[in-house]
C-alpha cells in the first residue's frame, strides 16, 4: 500500500487547510502536487516564467513544506513554475531556499530539469527520433532553433530517480501530470494500471469529487487498484465523479499515453465503498516497445499592441462591421505607406462575435460594441507605431463623408497597451530515447541552516 496525498490541482490554486491537515494525520507516504500545465497559453513556456504570483506561490509552498516536515515524508512538485522550463525550476528552488533559511530547516533537495538544447533537438530530428502526434504542426530545423524553450515531459522513471536520492523535496521541471503521483506506487510494486489510473484521477485534486474547491484528496494504491478518498469534510467521491474524470482535458476517455506505454481504462470497475470513497480495479497498463517522451516548445512570433474603443451610438452599432472594414482598409494603406514592414491589424468586435469569430452564426447585437484593435508586428516599435496610427480612426472615424466628426469612448490614456512579445506553441511531438534519464538532469542540493 502506498498513500499519496494531493493537496490541490496545482500550487497557487489554494486548498482547504483543514482537508490538508486531515490528510497529514492519515500519514501519507508522499505529498505530490502539480505546478502547472500548458492550459494558460504559450507565454509561460515562451518566457520560462510562472503564471501565479511569487507571493502566493511562496505562501502555499511554505505551508506544504511545513506539512511535509510534520509528516516526515517527501514532497514533490512537477512542472514547477507553470511551464517546467529550467528558469521556472530555478525560480521555485530559490523560493525553497528562502523558506528554508527563514525556518532554519535542514533539507535535501533533488532538482530534475527537463529543458532541452535546441541543437540536440535538431540533431534528433535529423536522426528520425522526433515524430509527430496527431494534429502536430510542421516543424523544421529553423523552428527548433527558434524555440525560446523546449521541454520534455518526464515520466515515472525520472521521478523515481529523483526520489531515490533520499530527497525531502523534489522540484521537477516539466513532467506529465500523472507521473509525480504514480512514481512511488510503481516503485513499490503497486498495480501498474491502478497506479496510472489513480494518478490521472488525482492529478486535479478534488476535481473528481462533488466539492472541487476542497482541493485535497488521498489515493491509496495497492496490488489490484486504488481507492480515492476526498479529505474535505463535505467532499464525496462517487463512481460517477471518479469515472467521469477520464473525460477531463483528455481527447480519448479510455486511453492515456505516458512515457513507456499507455493506460487503458476500458476494463475498469468503479465501486462505492461508502458514500464518499471509491475503489477502482481492472485498469490496464500496456508497455510500449519504444520509450518516448513528449516534447513541448514555444517560440517568439512577434509583438502585439492592443487598443480598446467603445461604440455606443446606435447607428454606429448597427453598422459596426462596415465601419471597421473601412478603418481596416484606410489604416492598413496609411501604415504601409508611412512605416512599411510586416504587420497585421485586426479589429475584434466585443459584444458581437469576439469569442467564437466566424463559428458564431447566431449572435445577437447589444446596445454597445467594444472594438479591440490588435496590431501584430515583427518588432515592438512597429506594433506600437501602427497602433498609434489606428488611434485617430478608433476615436473619430465617420461612417460617411457627409457627417459631423463622431467621437468614441476610450477607457484609458494612452489607449494603446503593449502586450510585448507573443509566443506560440510549436511542438506536439515525441522524442525517442534509449534511457529514460538521457535527456533529463538530476542534481541534489543539501540545505543546512
Amino acid at each position, binding site marked *: 500500500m502506498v498513500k499519496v496525498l494531493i493537496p490541490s490541482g496545482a500550487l497557487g490554486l489554494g486548498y482547504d487547510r483543514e482537508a490538508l491537515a486531515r490528510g497529514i494525520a492519515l500519514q501519507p507516504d508522499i505529498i505530490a502536487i502539480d505546478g502547472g500545465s*500548458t*492550459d*494558460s*497559453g*504559450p*507565454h509561460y513556456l515562451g518566457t520560462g516564467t510562472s503564471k501565479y504570483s511569487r507571493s502566493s506561490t511562496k505562501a502555499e509552498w511554505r505551508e506544504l513544506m511545513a506539512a511535509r516536515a510534520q509528516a516526515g515524508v517527501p514532497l514533490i512538485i512537477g512542472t514547477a513554475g507553470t511551464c517546467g522550463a529550467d528558469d521556472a525550476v530555478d525560480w521555485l528552488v530559490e523560493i525553497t531556499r528562502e523558506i528554508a533559511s527563514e525556518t532554519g530547516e535542514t533539507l535535501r533537495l533533488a532538482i530534475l530539469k527537463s529543458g532541452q538544447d535546441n541543437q540536440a533537438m535538431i540533431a534528433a530530428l535529423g536522426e528520425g527520433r522526433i515524430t509527430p*502526434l*496527431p*494534429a*502536430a*504542426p510542421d516543424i523544421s530545423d529553423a523552428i527548433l532553433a527558434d524555440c525560446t524553450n523546449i521541454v520534455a515531459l518526464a515520466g515515472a522513471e525520472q521521478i523515481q530517480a529523483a526520489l531515490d536520492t533520499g530527497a525531502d523535496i523534489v522540484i521537477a521541471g516539466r513532467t506529465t501530470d500523472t507521473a509525480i503521483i504514480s512514481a512511488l506506487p510503481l516503485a513499490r510494486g503497486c498495480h501498474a494500471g491502478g497506479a496510472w489510473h489513480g494518478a490521472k484521477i488525482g492529478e486535479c485534486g478534488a476535481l473528481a469529487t462533488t466539492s472541487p474547491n476542497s482541493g485535497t484528496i488521498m489515493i491509496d494504491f495497492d496490488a489490484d487498484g486504488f481507492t480515492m478518498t476526498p479529505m474535505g469534510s463535505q467532499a464525496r467521491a462517487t463512481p*460517477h465523479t471518479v*469515472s*467521469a474524470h477520464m*473525460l*477531463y*482535458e*483528455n*481527447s*480519448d*476517455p*479510455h486511453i492515456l499515453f505516458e512515457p513507456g506505454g499507455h493506460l487503458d481504462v476500458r476494463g475498469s470497475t468503479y465501486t462505492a465503498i461508502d458514500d464518499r470513497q471509491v475503489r477502482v480495479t481492472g485498469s490496464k497498463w500496456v508497455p510500449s516497445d519504444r520509450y518516448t517522451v513528449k516534447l513541448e516548445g514555444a517560440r517568439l*512570433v*512577434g509583438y*502585439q499592441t492592443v487598443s480598446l474603443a467603445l461604440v455606443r451610438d446606435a447607428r454606429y452599432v448597427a453598422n459596426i462591421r462596415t465601419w471597421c472594414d473601412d478603418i481596416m482598409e484606410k489604416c492598413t494603406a496609411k501604415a504601409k505607406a508611412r512605416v512599411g514592414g510586416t504587420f*497585421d491589424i*485586426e479589429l*475584434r468586435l466585443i459584444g458581437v462575435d*469576439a*469569442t*467564437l*469569430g*466566424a*463559428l*458564431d452564426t*447566431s449572435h445577437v447585437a447589444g446596445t454597445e460594441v467594444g472594438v479591440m484593435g*490588435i496590431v*501584430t508586428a515583427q518588432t515592438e516599435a512597429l506594433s506600437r507605431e501602427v497602433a498609434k496610427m489606428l488611434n485617430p480612426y478608433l476615436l473619430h472615424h465617420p461612417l460617411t463623408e457627409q457627417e459631423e466628426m463622431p467621437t468614441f469612448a476610450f477607457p484609458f490614456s494612452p489607449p494603446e497597451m503593449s502586450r510585448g512579445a*507573443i*509566443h*506560440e*506553441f510549436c511542438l*506536439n511531438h515525441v522524442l525517442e530515447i534509449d534511457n529514460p534519464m538521457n535527456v533529463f538532469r538530476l542534481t541534489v542540493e543539501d540545505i543546512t541552516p
Partner: protein
Amino acid sequence: MTRLTDVATKIRSKNAGPFWLTVDIFCGDADAYARISAGISSAQVADLFQINQASLKRFDLADLHVVKFSLPRPCVQGTAADRDMHGASFANLLAEMDV
C-alpha cells in the same frame, strides 16, 4: 425546436493540450442519453466547427450518460488567431444546436 442545452445537464469544452479541443455532453440519465446520442449526428457537429467529419472523434459513453467529441483545435491555443485560451466557450456552439 429543442436545443441541446434544454436536454443535457452540462456541456463542457476544454483544451486537451494546445492542439486539441474536447467537448463533453453530460446527459444526466439514460433517457436523455438515448435521445442525445441518437439525436445529434457527427456531421452536424463537424458543420458547427466547420471541419471535415473525418477529423472529429466521437465517443458514446452509455455508462456515464456522456457523448464526447474531440477535434483538432479550431486555432492552436494561444496563436494570434485564437480567441479563447482555455477553449471553454466552444461548448456554447453545441448548447445552442437543435436536437
